């Protein structure tokens, strides 16, 4: 019994180790068969392309750690993008102010999720399914679907398209936020609370942890980060439109779960999530460089996800099956 947690701990560790190996394997594989894969430029692109989804995945990690989920981040990215655009173009606000307003809006939207989930004790899946449609719908309603915000000043586009000290300009921001989340989850009492809530919401409450506030915090953070992602996204594309970030929530969840975070909450890590994001991003770029159709990337991601999950439980299941078989045999003998 004492070994129980140890093995589970190893599992987590092993999971991330396996993921790392998978990542390296992908890299070597595509380096071998792909044309000019893994060059410096290509690596920069991979980093650049994974920033938005990476940000969403980072924000999703604490949420899933507390046993929740947020389907609305992709839609919120879209909403914030067009809010940002509208405030800048029609509101004639300077870029930084517009950005701040967009972030505030993101926080507000996250707050809506948080309020419904913690105050009314509604299941996150449903609440965010609702806001998933709502946010996207608002984005389309505001722009009538067709209004596109563009011609942003180069000083702003720099953030999304240029390099700074040889690395993509958005990378430092991404890294900073990644570090923030790593510290939050692994080095502060907040992260501790998230896990406690994820493992045993009641238990956390009996330990005097303000469960409600902690959970709310994760969703508000997700809102803020979605807004930041929206701004980077706008800078990268040079346009803001109501369809921005379609389907990103699923990529983010995939990355988090692939990174070894349990969908039931409690166990998981931010570096795992980062590995998950990297594994997907490398796969997507590698497939193109290997001149394979990009559908392959999706298929392989799905397969990878199932394998990752199965690998964690398969040994247990097999042993339990064995036990049952032997038991049945015994029963037969007795009967």
């Amino acid at each position, binding site marked *: 019994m004492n070994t129980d947690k140890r093995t589970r701990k190893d599992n987590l560790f092993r999971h991330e180790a396996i993921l790392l190996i998978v990542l390296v394997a992908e890299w070597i*594989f595509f380096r*071998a*068969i*792909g*044309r*000019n*894969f893994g*060059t410096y*430029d*290509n690596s920069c*692109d991979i980093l*650049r*392309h994974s920033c*938005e989804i990476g940000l969403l995945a980072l924000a999703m990690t604490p949420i899933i750690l507390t046993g929740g989920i947020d389907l609305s981040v992709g839609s919120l990215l879209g909403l914030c993008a067009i809010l940002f655009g509208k405030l800048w173009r029609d509101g004639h606000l300077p870029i930084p102010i517009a950005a701040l307003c967009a972030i505030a809006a993101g926080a507000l939207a996250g707050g809506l999720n948080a309020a419904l989930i913690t105050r009314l004790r509604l299941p996150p899946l449903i609440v965010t399914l609702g806001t998933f449609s709502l946010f996207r719908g608002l984005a*389309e309603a505001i722009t*009538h*679907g*067709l209004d*596109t915000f*563009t*011609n942003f000043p180069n000083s702003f*586009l720099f953030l999304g*398209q240029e390099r700074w000290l040889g690395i993509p300009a958005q990378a430092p921001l991404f890294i900073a936020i990644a570090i923030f989340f790593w510290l939050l989850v692994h080095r502060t009492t907040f992260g501790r609370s998230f896990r406690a809530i994820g493992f045993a919401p009641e238990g956390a409450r009996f330990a005097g942890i303000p469960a409600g506030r902690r959970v709310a915090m994760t969703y508000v953070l997700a809102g803020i980060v979605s807004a930041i992602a929206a701004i980077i*996204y706008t800078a*990268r*594309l*040079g*346009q803001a*439109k*109501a*369809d*921005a*970030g*379609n*389907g*990103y929530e699923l990529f983010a969840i995939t990355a988090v779960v692939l990174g070894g975070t349990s969908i039931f909450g409690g166990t998981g890590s931010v570096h795992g999530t980062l590995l998950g994001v990297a594994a997907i991003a490398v796969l*997507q*770029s590698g497939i*193109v*460089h*290997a*001149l*394979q*159709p*990009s*559908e*392959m990337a*999706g*298929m*392989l991601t799905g*397969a990878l996800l199932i394998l990752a999950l199965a690998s964690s439980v398969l040994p247990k299941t097999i042993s339990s099956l064995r036990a049952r078989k032997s038991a049945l045999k015994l029963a037969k003998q007795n009967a």
Partner: protein
Amino acid sequence: MKKLLSSLVLLAAFAVFSGCNKSAESPAPGADSSKSAKKLTIALLPKSKGNAYFISCQKGAQKAATELGDELIFDGPTGTDPAKQNEIVENWITLGVDAIAAACENKEGISTALRKAQAKGIKVITYDADALTDGRTFFVNQATPQGIGYTLMDQAAQLCASNGEFAIITASLTAANQQEWQKYIQEDRDKNYPDMKLVAVKPCDDLKDKAQSETTALLSTYPNLKLVMAICSPGVPGAAEAVKQAGKTGQIKVIGLGLPNENKIYVHGGVTQAVILWNTMDLGYLTVYAADAMAHGNLKPGDTSFKAGSLGTFEIKGDNILLGKPFVFTKDNIDQFDF
């Protein structure tokens, strides 16, 4: 290594098609990385994967590529996220293709990536839907948005004696080219057909079924609707089916932009009066020839004409290589085409 991949693929293929023996033809060419000096790599970017329109473009493109001995890469976004096109282009840049031919989902969005490609010395042309002019050298112009918009509107007017109500089925509210076409449809209407009234614009999310249900709703909402105009290829058969089911065949006209093969039944059934399109295979063919010529330096800005293999010579207006006027498929001619 390739074995491993292909075996994975076969596995998936088996899973998906348990039973039925439709053989799977992979669009992607073999990944042999030997790249001789003459042999060029030309990348063809559709607006989206899994879209019959671009598949037929690809057929023509492949034909041209084999004639020229070039390597053709055909890939595009599988989702609805506009950033995907940029990512693929940027991957192609590092991949080191010689020329990129793009059909742009988002003018502004994609242009940022295309500029980058040009900066890296990659020849960039656009086809089907143009980018910002500084994003590419040439636009293989199968028909200007204006041309399309006007042709559609003229057809519509002609079919309903230039008065009465009509409605539009679009791909999605956010698709850029659709919006542009609508703009010109409106413009033409205002100029020439003031008696025609546009009553509604409905998105069908590029799904035939949704186009069908939306049209059904339109038909019962606007009893004296005279014509439905579907400007995305899944929309046309969808709208036609709805009209047919409403038993309004012939009374309510259906026209739109679509592929002959998807619409033959309805055109013959008299449900759809006209399908407007150009020869998509020629479009792909011409595009690849142009890209190849540019990469070899045989085609430079300022040229006024250009010879594309078996299709002969095409006129170049400014930086537009003109494929010719959009083509109107009707009962009489539709069977001559297979794409």
